[in-house]
Structures are given as structure tokens and as C-alpha cells.
């Protein structure tokens, strides 16, 4: 049952029905008890009356039995369908039927001598009150059939149930209408949403929402906002990526056309050299775009392992050694005791360090030195990469980690993505990247990541 409306209606009708039913059962039980009490009292009253009539000699036993009985009967009868409900018998103590009322059975109503008793006669249960009059040597018995009592109670219940069954459909309809009306804000919201275009991510109005739906609408609106932001990011990324991929392609094509069209050996060779560089640059760009897409796509928490920071740094440096020696740049490693460990995702950190180091190498002057150092800083691990390049002009520093931003001191091979990738990867590790110009020249990239080390993993 997935509809709130159906569920509400079922619950409301079910509980109402249940309340009604228990009321009926309760009324039935109490009516039955009350009827029994009243009718029992009447039986005893009638028995005592007949007995006193006999005792006072107002009627002669056996002479005017009909009169006596009819007197007794008149006392308790009523003219409705419940007439003739009482039967009276007078028995001698020796066991002979002296008198009985009309309609009373021939068989002895009870064997009990005194008080109430129940007895089956001709398949009917009778409730009987008997009084033994030792003085006169008779036993007076007044009884009524239990069937009559049941009928009485049944009539009372029927009187209650009849209006209920007529009212119940109305009640059901009322419940249905109320539920529908109560749920209107929900269905209104659903209608608004389903009539929207897929690109329409405006927030839903929240002011006139009932308190129960407001949190859901709130959550929905914040989801809209996130999706919208993600979409915007993707859109600008696509635009930039298109530009960054097509520009080198345009360059390649132009140079190829020059190479094809020029007879001059110098121009020819230069064009081919440009093409070779261009292919390198484009290849690197594609790799970086894929790295970026990977970082963006892995929405899930990265899976961290306990990593030795110094061995990660050394791995990255070893990878970049070839590029460094080609550029005539030396890399000095200062990793302290080398025992610093952190609970991190190694691939993200290596990606960040690789891009930072590549950036430093490509901006370093020939014969320059890059210093890579790492240190424990409270609960964080700090990794610093310092170069002797031109640094980044102060006004460009805030934009340096923007995607595709290439500042004044750009290199031939740079794509404007390296620092953006480093920044994103470090953010994914929960850390921060700080870029600072050094005195007198050079750039210092400071990576700070939380070590998240507990218990046995404590850093040395």
C-alpha cells in the first residue's frame, strides 16, 4: 500500500469501525447484564407476590388456580411482543402440580427449592425463581425463557446497528474527502514538479508549505541548487575543454599545412618541430583532462590506506626525474626521519604532488634547484615544494588554481590545469593547498593534509 491517501483512509475507516465495534460489544454486554438484573428482580418479585397471596389465603390453592395465576401474570406482563413471558407453577411439596399459568409448560420448572436456577424444558432454557412455602406445603415457581431475554438484548443492539450501517458509507465518504483535502499541498507540489521542464531547477516556493512538507521541499530545493551548480560547472568545463583541445588541434593543422605547403627547408623543419611539441602538449592535456574528470567523478569517499608520506613523495620525484634532468633542474629531498605516515588515499596525493612538481620543474630556470620537504604539523602532514622559478604575480595568485588559467609566466607546454588538479585532489583529501611567492624569487607550494591517524597508526 504505497499511497498515503489509501493508507490514511484505511487507517481512519479501520479505527472508526473498531471503535464502533467495541462500543457495540460493550453496550451488548452491559445491556445483557442490566436486562438480567431487572428481569431477575421481576421474577423474584412475582414469586414473592404469588407466595404472599397464597399465604394470606386470598386465593385458595387448587380452587381458583386460574385467577391466581392470571393475577400473577398481570403483575409482570406487558402488552407488546414480550407478552406471556412469565410462567408460574405451584407444586405441592409431595410433588403434585397444584396450579400453573396459561402457557406454562407441564413439566416442573425447576428442582431447586429456593432461589434462582436454570433448567432446560422442551429444548428451551428457563430461568426460574422458586419459593418453598412450608406452612402451606407448596412450592411457588416463576420462570421465563432465556430466549426472550436474548431477543430483548438483540433488539437493543439492532436498534444501535441500523443507523450505524446507514451512516457508515457517509462517514467513509467524509473521511475520503478530508484526506484528499488534507493532502492537497502534496499533490499540488507533485503537479508543479511534473509539469516542469528537465532544465528548470528553480527552487519550489516554501512560504505557504505545511510544516510537515516544508523539510522535504527544503531538501529538494537544496538538491536543485547542487544539481544546478554541478551542471553549471560541467557546462563551463565543457566550454573550456573544447577550447583547450581545439586550439592545439588548430595549431597542429596549421603547422601541418605549412609543412605541406612550404618548400623552404627551415620553415618545413620548424613546422614539424612545432607539430611534435604540439602533440606532446595535447597528449599531456588529454591526460590532465582525464585526471580532472576522474577527480570530479569519484563522488564517493576515497578509500584511504596507511601511507608513508616520504615514500609517496619519493615515488613522485622518481617519476619526474627524467623531466627534471631534461630541463637541467635538480631536486633536493628533505623528508626528516622519513617515518611520517598518514591515513590517506595515495592516488589523490600522488596526483596532486605530480602536478605541483611538474609545474615547478617547467618553471625552474636551467640549473635551478627544487626542494621537496615534508613535516608533521600537529595533526596535519605538510609537504612543501619550493622552486626558483619566476613565481606567480601577486594579482594572479587567487586565480592560479582556476581551471585553464594561464598567467603571465606561462610555459610553452602548460595547459592551465596542473594547479587546478592539485587543488581539487588535495580538497578531496580534506586538505588545503597554499601557493606563496618566495623571497627573492620562486614559488612555494604548501600542501597540508589531515593525517587522520588513530591508535596504532600514530605518527612518529
Amino acid at each position, binding site marked *: 500500500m504505497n499511497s498515503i491517501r489509501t493508507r490514511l483512509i484505511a487507517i481512519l475507516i479501520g479505527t472508526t469501525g473498531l471503535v464502533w465495534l467495541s462500543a457495540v460489544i460493550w453496550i451488548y454486554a452491559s445491556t445483557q447484564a442490566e436486562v438480567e438484573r431487572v428481569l431477575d428482580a421481576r421474577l423474584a418479585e412475582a414469586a414473592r407476590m404469588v407466595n404472599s397471596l397464597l399465604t394470606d389465603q386470598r386465593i385458595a390453592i387448587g380452587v381458583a388456580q386460574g385467577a391466581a395465576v392470571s393475577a400473577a401474570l398481570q403483575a409482570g406482563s406487558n402488552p407488546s411482543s414480550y407478552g406471556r413471558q412469565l410462567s408460574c407453577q405451584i407444586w405441592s411439596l409431595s410433588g403434585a402440580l397444584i396450579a400453573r399459568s396459561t402457557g406454562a409448560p407441564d413439566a416442573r420448572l425447576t428442582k431447586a427449592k429456593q432461589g434462582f436456577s436454570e433448567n432446560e424444558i422442551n429444548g428451551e432454557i428457563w430461568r426460574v425463581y422458586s419459593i418453598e412455602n412450608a406452612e402451606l406445603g407448596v412450592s411457588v415457581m416463576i420462570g421465563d425463557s432465556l430466549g426472550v431475554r436474548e431477543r430483548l438484548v438483540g433488539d437493543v443492539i439492532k436498534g444501535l446497528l441500523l443507523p450505524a450501517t446507514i451512516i457508515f458509507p457517509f462517514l467513509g465518504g467524509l473521511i475520503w474527502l478530508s484526506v484528499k483535502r488534507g493532502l492537497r499541498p502534496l499533490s499540488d507540489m507533485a503537479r508543479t514538479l511534473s509539469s516542469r521542464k528537465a532544465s528548470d531547477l528553480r527552487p519550489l516556493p516554501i512560504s505557504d508549505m505545511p510544516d510537515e512538507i516544508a523539510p522535504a521541499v527544503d531538501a529538494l530545493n537544496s538538491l536543485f541548487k547542487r544539481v544546478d551548480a554541478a551542471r553549471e560547472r560541467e557546462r563551463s568545463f565543457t566550454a573550456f575543454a573544447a577550447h583547450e583541445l581545439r586550439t592545439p588541434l588548430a595549431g597542429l593543422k596549421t603547422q601541418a599545412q605549412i609543412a605541406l605547403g612550404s618548400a623552404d627547408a627551415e*620553415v618545413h623543419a620548424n613546422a614539424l618541430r612545432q607539430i611534435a611539441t604540439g602533440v606532446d602538449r595535447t597528449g599531456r592535456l588529454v591526460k590532465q583532462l582525464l585526471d580532472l574528470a576522474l577527480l570530479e567523478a569519484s563522488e564517493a569517499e576515497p578509500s584511504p590506506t596507511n601511507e608513508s608520506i616520504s615514500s609517496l613523495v619519493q615515488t613522485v620525484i622518481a617519476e619526474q626525474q627524467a623531466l627534471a634532468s631534461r630541463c637541467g633542474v635538480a631536486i633536493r629531498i628533505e623528508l626528516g626521519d622519513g617515518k611520517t605516515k598518514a591515513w590517506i588515499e595515495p592516488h589523490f596525493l600522488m596526483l596532486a604532488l605530480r602536478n605541483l612538481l611538474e609545474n615547478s620543474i617547467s618553471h625552474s630556470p636551467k640549473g635551478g634547484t627544487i626542494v621537496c620537504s615534508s613535516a608533521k604539523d600537529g595533526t596535519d602532514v605538510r609537504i612543501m615544494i619550493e622552486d626558483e622559478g619566476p613565481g606567480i604575480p601577486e594579482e594572479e595568485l587567487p586565480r592560479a588554481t582556476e581551471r585553464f588559467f594561464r598567467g603571465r609566466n606561462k610555459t610553452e607546454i602548460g595547459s592551465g590545469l596542473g594547479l587546478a588538479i592539485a587543488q581539487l585532489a588535495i580538497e578531496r583529501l580534506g586538505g588545503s593547498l597554499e601557493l606563496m611567492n618566495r623571497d627573492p624569487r620562486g614559488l612555494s607550494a604548501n600542501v597540508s593534509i589531515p593525517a587522520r591517524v588513530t591508535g596504532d597508526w600514530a605518527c612518529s
Partner: protein
Amino acid sequence: MLVDGLTVGLGLAGFTVDAVSSCEDAATATRAQRYDAIVLDLMLPDGSGLDVLAELRGAKDSTPVVLLTARDQVADRISGLDAGADDYMGKPFDLDELAARLRAVARRGVGRANAILEWRGVMLDPAQLTATRGGAPLKLTRREFSVLRALMERPMATVPKAALEETLYGWQEEVESNAVEVHVHHLRTKLGPNFIKTVRGLGYRLAEDTP
């Protein structure tokens, strides 16, 4: 790589190219000198090419502009053309086509529809870089061709010597002293002494008819 390719490639197609790679430098260059046409990339490191275009048109500079862009969505093309661009090419483009479009917008820039330049029997084809006189091919060097083209594009006007120098040399190239005079001298040897007139103190112009 693209800048280098355009400089060399358009140079091979007979253009003299000044290349810059930022909005700031582009603004400086267009303020300093008149160009026959401008190739403008939309995404520049310090801003959008559209800003350069807006500034250019804002300064009443009507130099023809061909936009280069990687975003070839219709909306981008429309915004580029509406900002005052004369033509539009998506990357990657064909070098020859770019050269042809540049020639076309430059031609329209001086109010000419015909691609072939003609003056007193001399025909110049800027696309093929060929010249003929009375149907017979004329052998001209690249620089001679450029000087003659600059004069024939504005046949009734006097072209200053400085303008001819700008036509001949990009920024990177060393301007040889008397270079214009030397080329004009060579042209006079090939076309006859009275084809180009010297307007003393002002520059050169084409002579109206043979005396």
C-alpha cells in the same frame, strides 16, 4: 603553437603578421597601428576576445575582424557577429580558408568586391600571389608584391612610406633602411618609370596614365 602557425602560415599566404597573445597586447597593437584585418581568438589568458572587439568598435575602429573559436554553438557565433565581428571560424580551421576569408574581409573593408586588383593593364591576384601585365606574367618578389598591392588597393590615394613599411615588416623583423625606396625602384624597373609616382614628403601613389 597556433600563434606561431598563424604567423608563419599567413606569412606564406602573403600577409605580414603581427602576433600578440593577450587582450592587453592586442589593445596596444590596434591603438598603435592600422591593420587590414584582425584574427581574434575568443579565449585569451587575460579575458575574452569579445572584450577586445568591443573596445575596438567602441573606439570607432572598423578594421575587419575574423573570430576564431572552439565553441561553435550558434549562440556563440551570433554573439560574436553581433559584437562587430565580420566573419567567424571554428577551430580547427583550414589555413587556406582563413587566408581567403581574411582577404575577403580586408577587401570589403576598403569597399571592393573584386578579388583581382587592376590598374592600367597590371593585374594582381592576392590569393595566388601572382601578377600579370597585359596577360604576360610578371615576376615579383614577395616584398615587391606587397608594396604594389598596398598601392593598388587604394589607387587614387597617396600611401605614406610608414604605412608601406608596416605592410612589409612585422614587429619581429628588422626594417632595412631605404627598403621601401629599393622595392619601389625595382618595381619601376619592371613596370616602367612612370607607373608609381613619388609624392615628396608624403609617400607614393599610382600614376593615372602614361604621359
